[in-house]
């Protein structure tokens, strides 16, 4: 035993000492490390622009030489562009996922916003000697003079680069090379869209014209496009139809190994045969060949979609990706999905809102067919809009539904969450769009959300292995941790947002209704407020409030105590003698075993008529009028808390109000 204790003491001591050392070291070094990081990228920028500086004045020199422009990107992050006031050359910081770790750095472009002046990598964790070469000046010098291409961005090649947008790949580190040029390209496109008036749509338009053998040049491509194609937009879907050959083109986004892949495809007038296809942007590593090797996408040209919408014959295509099968498979799946969407919307006239409207009906347990869902949707729900939030209230049972959207592991997850009228209890959840890998079960596995039914956002839900409270739900995500985190976040925040916007729930509702229940006053959701006002006379003394029933003189008051799991709140009603129990109602608790005090409707039936003379007690076999049968089972903490609070509250209220009452 002594041995055991000394071991415990050692472990605790070791933990404490090492924590203190780590905290101390962090405290000592944090500022300097931040300063060094700032020093690293600012001096890199200064040297790119050939500006003189020294270690003490670099920050001032930096501020003096550059005009800072800022803009917010699509995710709400601020992006900064540093413009050299003399030369017009621009610099910005970039970052993105390498093969093993985040790669960060700064890049400087000439004033044409396309030609690379210099690149410095300030942080990376690639394999030393292989991918790690990406940070070496000697390698990065290869990028000088390379020009971002409108369509390809920058491409890493194994042979000698001969096109203006090609650079040498790192020997033996194709994955890192491709990821790196992918980061540069994606970040470049982002900065270009934020800070220049370049038409970001141009690559797509040009690709579509190439697919249709339309001749154009950089000066006239916009007008040629407008004259040759008809643009049709339904909801968020845009289709470009060639005026003479009726070929159809559209842009689409698929999942990938590292991130989304944007692409554009042209099909024949029947949406069956692929006429042309191009990738516009991606950040794949090994799978980068999808854009860099033109022959790979060429394999898809002439392929046909099966008329039953179910497949695209692409076996050879996937094989040609070698190891990067995820990229190929995600791309094909996304292409098929996009084609089917466009086909059903533009060719079959299917409503693009179908998916979520049907999901809403499913959640609300309304049976529908392909023909009548639209009518049912309109007749079932009352639509309320505030800012950009829309709430669908079920006309029959008052259930509340709203859409949520989040970024999962691969792509966007869209779903519908339906809550009961209390804005708390889950009716059902349906996911109607996703492109996850392991996490795909949230849409494909029927009954995945069955465990969620009846669980409550009080105020948030959580995923655990063994749920014991009403806000805990069994974690069914397996290894799909990113999907899980995204879903948890999306559900909790959307409920919060919608509650704040629409949930003008009366905070007094719970206890006022409990008071009415104790006094056997029947009420509805609409009239409880009026009944409450008319049934009771309210007397206050200090912070104590006594509610006297106007009809029979019963006395009620609220009590509050800490139970095993959290606060227990309830109402105790006594007869006018301040002694005999009329009833007890608990309206808030988060106990485990003791939850029965709220959930078991008959739990307090045994208390009726018992007397605080002067105190009550819980016993197994009650014989006196102050003894009540102990119904708490193993919930001893809850029991002790309840006994204590009931007895002391009665005493307090007696002292304050007895005699007057």
């Amino acid at each position, binding site marked *: 035993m002594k*041995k055991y204790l*000394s*071991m415990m003491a*050692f*472990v605790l001591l*070791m*933990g404490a000492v*090492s924590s203190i*050392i*780590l905290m101390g*070291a*962090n405290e*000592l*070094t944090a500022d*300097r*490390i931040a300063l*060094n990081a700032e*020093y*690293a990228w600012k001096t890199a920028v200064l040297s790119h622009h050939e500006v003189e500086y020294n270690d003490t004045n670099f920050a001032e020199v930096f501020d003096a030489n550059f005009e800072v422009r800022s803009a917010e990107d699509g995710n709400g992050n601020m992006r900064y562009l540093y413009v050299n006031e003399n030369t017009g050359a621009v610099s910005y910081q970039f970052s993105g996922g390498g093969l*093993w*770790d985040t790669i960060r750095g700064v890049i400087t472009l000439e004033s044409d916003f396309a030609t690379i002046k210099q690149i410095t990598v300030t942080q*990376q*964790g*690639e*394999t*030393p*000697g*292989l991918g*790690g070469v990406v*940070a070496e000046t000697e390698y990065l010098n290869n990028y000088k003079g390379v020009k971002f291409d409108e369509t390809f961005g920058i491409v890493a090649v194994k042979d000698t680069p001969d096109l203006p947008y090609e650079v040498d790949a790192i*020997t*033996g580190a194709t994955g890192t090379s491709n990821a790196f040029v992918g980061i540069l390209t994606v970040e470049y496109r982002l900065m270009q869209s934020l800070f220049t008036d370049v038409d970001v749509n141009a690559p797509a338009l040009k690709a579509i014209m190439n697919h249709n053998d339309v001749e154009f040049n950089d000066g006239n491509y916009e007008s040629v496009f407008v004259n040759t194609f008809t643009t049709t937009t339904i909801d968020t879907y845009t289709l470009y139809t060639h005026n003479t050959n009726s070929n159809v083109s559209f842009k689409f986004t698929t999942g990938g190994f590292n991130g989304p892949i944007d692409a554009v495809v042209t099909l024949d007038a029947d949406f069956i045969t692929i006429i042309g296809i191009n990738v516009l942007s991606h950040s794949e590593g090994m799978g980068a060949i999808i854009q860099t090797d033109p022959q790979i996408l060429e394999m898809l040209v002439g392929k046909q979609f099966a008329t039953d919408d179910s497949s695209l014959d692409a076996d050879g295509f996937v094989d040609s990706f070698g190891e990067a099968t995820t990229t190929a498979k995600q791309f094909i799946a996304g292409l098929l999905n996009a084609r089917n969407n466009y086909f059903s919307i533009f060719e079959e006239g299917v409503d693009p809102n179908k998916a979520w409207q049907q999901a809403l009906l499913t959640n609300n347990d309304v049976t529908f067919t392909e023909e009548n869902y639209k009518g049912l949707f309109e007749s079932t729900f009352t639509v309320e809009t505030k800012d950009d939030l829309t709430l669908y209230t079920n006309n029959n049972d008052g259930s509340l539904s709203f859409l949520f959207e989040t970024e999962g592991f691969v792509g966007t997850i869209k779903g519908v969450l339906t809550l009961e009228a209390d804005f708390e209890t889950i009716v059902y959840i349906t996911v109607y769009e996703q492109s996850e890998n392991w996490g795909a079960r949230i849409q494909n596995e029927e009954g995945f959300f069955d465990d969620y039914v009846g669980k409550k956002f009080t105020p948030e839900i959580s995923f655990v292995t063994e749920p014991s409270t009403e806000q805990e739900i069994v974690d069914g995500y397996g290894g799909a941790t990113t999907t899980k985190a995204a879903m948890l976040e999306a559900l909790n925040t959307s409920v919060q947002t919608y509650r704040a916007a629409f949930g003008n729930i009366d905070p007094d509702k719970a206890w006022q209704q409990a008071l009415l229940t104790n006094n056997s006053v029947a009420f509805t959701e609409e009239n409880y407020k009026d009944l409450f006002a008319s049934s009771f006379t309210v007397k206050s003394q200090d912070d104590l409030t006594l509610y006297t029933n106007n009809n029979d003189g019963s006395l009620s008051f609220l009590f509050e105590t800490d139970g095993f799991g959290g606060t227990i709140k309830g109402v105790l009603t006594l007869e006018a003698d301040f002694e005999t129990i009329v009833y007890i109602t608990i309206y808030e608790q988060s106990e485990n075993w003791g939850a029965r005090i709220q959930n078991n409707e008959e739990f307090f039936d045994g208390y009726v008529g018992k007397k605080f003379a002067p105190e009550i007690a819980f016993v197994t076999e009650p014989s006196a009028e102050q003894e009540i049968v102990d119904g708490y089972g193993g919930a001893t903490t809850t029991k002790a808390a309840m006994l204590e609070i009931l007895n002391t509250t009665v005493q307090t209220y007696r002292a304050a109000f007895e005699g007057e009452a």
Partner: protein
Amino acid sequence: MNNQENKSTIPKPSGWLRLQYKKWFVILKNGISDENPIVVSVLGICSALAVTNRVENAIVMGIGVTFVIMGSSALVSILRNLIPSKVRMIAYMVIISLLTIVVQMFLQAYLPTVAANLGAYTGLIITNCIVMGRAEAFAIKNPLKYTLIDSFANGMGYMLVLIAIAAIREPLAFGTFLNMKIPGFENWINWNVMALAPGGFFVLTLLAWLMRTLTKNYEEN
């Protein structure tokens, strides 16, 4: 008198011979050659494969590992009478990680260029089995003086093998030595396999074979 004469006739052992029986020398020799952590004990080969495609990397990694082995072994040795045997492994882990993280923090704060050059190595050092191996095999039962010699010897043994492997791989993979072009290698066609992990496997295995044959170190049942 006779006795005196007899004594003087037995030649005094040479300095070299006497040195070979000093405890500190035995420990040093064991670490570097007889019980070399890589080729004999086959510890720490993961990092040996990863970083030996350049001599420069091998040297940096070798110094880093030597430093951490010495630091952690010294701490373990000092605390060896305090550490309860049941939790000693955890104690090693805590000491090693603590040491590495603190060193990394201070490097990043005060010697950022060195930290940038070390890059991913610091993380690799924590996972190096030699560090833990020496703590368990030596430091936990030996005084500080010998522990320092042992950990230095093992670090050097590790570094020398790393450099030996890298000295074979770098010229074959890149036609360079310590990043400088080797005379006569001007038209060298880079042998990519040597830059990758499989190249490390080949060279390491051949080297271990050679070393074991030379030192007649055979594993027998």
